[in-house]
């Protein structure tokens, strides 16, 4: 009897040991993946945004198709906009036609909030509702916006819209309401979860890849590499606003 006990005991221990250690190893193997899932763009969800990153977009005008409106449609769907183009309708992004009067060359590009480093809309806001987040995204805090529309006047890109009428059926992530000013949020609700903007996604889906979204402060990001190697411009660079949205090929 004793011999049997002595024989079985080490076997059981070994089995236990193997089972436990394999569970431990599995845990270790999963842990890095879990971390990647939890962190959005290298930031934990409960961590405040910092100025270590600066979000921006590079729009390649040569790849932007003239008749294509996919970015606008995607923006409207994502943010619950009506899609109307009357002066009283909100437009966060719109396609602009450019014509060189000398050569007759026509090109089109998407125009939206340029997420300036020195935003005029923030300068003029009397309630500090218009503000720039640490990571460079310019937003309107509608809780404190009084709807004076100074920012609409101040914006050189005419990127801001005023909500004139009562709205219903807003998106959960995109609250919008009458009496406040709004504009492109650079899909902040997506970025905070580690995503990209709806317009950039739609452009890739359409196969144009004209909109490149990324971190301008990270020298290794695709957008930084691109603006380092190719000439790109800021629209109305003379104003010295240092826009976060840049264009190439115009």
């Amino acid at each position, binding site marked *: 009897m004793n011999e049997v006990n002595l024989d079985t005991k080490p076997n059981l221990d070994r089995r236990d040991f193997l089972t436990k250690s394999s569970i431990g190893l599995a845990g270790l193997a999963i842990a890095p993946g879990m971390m990647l899932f939890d962190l959005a763009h290298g*930031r934990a*969800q*409960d*961590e*405040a*945004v910092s100025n270590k990153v600066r979000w921006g977009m590079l729009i390649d005008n040569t790849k932007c198709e003239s008749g294509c409106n996919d970015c606008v449609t995607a923006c409207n769907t994502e943010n619950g906009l009506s899609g109307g183009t009357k002066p009283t309708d909100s437009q966060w992004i719109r396609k602009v036609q450019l014509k060189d009067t000398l050569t007759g060359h026509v090109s089109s590009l998407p125009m939206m909030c340029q997420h300036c480093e020195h935003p005029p809309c923030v300068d003029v806001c009397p309630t500090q509702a218009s*503000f720039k*987040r*640490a*990571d460079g995204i310019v*937003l309107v*805090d*509608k*809780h404190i916006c009084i709807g004076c529309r100074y920012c609409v006047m101040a914006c050189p890109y005419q990127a801001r819209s005023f909500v004139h009428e*009562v*709205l219903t*059926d*807003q*998106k*959960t*992530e995109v*609250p*919008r*309401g*009458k009496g*406040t000013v709004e504009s492109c949020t650079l899909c*902040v*609700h997506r970025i*905070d*979860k580690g995503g990209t903007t709806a317009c950039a996604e739609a452009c890739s889906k359409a196969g144009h890849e004209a909109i490149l979204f990324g971190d301008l402060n990270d020298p290794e990001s695709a957008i930084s590499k691109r603006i380092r190697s190719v000439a790109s411009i800021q629209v109305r660079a003379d104003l010295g606003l240092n826009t976060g949205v840049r264009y190439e090929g115009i």
Partner: protein
Amino acid sequence: MKIGIRLTAILFSVFIATAVCAADKPQVPQLDVGKGGQCVEDPKLMRKIHMNLLKHQRDETMHKGIRGQKYSLADCVECHASNKTNSVLGSNEAFCQGCHTYAAVKLDCFECHTSKRKVTAEASK
């Protein structure tokens, strides 16, 4: 004289007892709690300070980008939207509107935020 005092004392105690009984059964609104379940805080506390919790967290989210925290209006709606109408507004039984009407407090949240539970792609199929 003594009897008079005693009678007054008895009447007084009866009066207090009825008052206490009445306080036991206040006319509270009958609310449709939707999915319900375990709230993020004690419901008694939530009734008193939910607005403070929401206001604190909204600033954190808006200005600092801190999301997915404990007190979120979207989560209020997620749990408490009526199972019939999918909304926290619409009637005096609705979770938010019912109580706010009872307390006569203006409810501004839903002028911008949606009062409807987010319908997932799977649920809408």
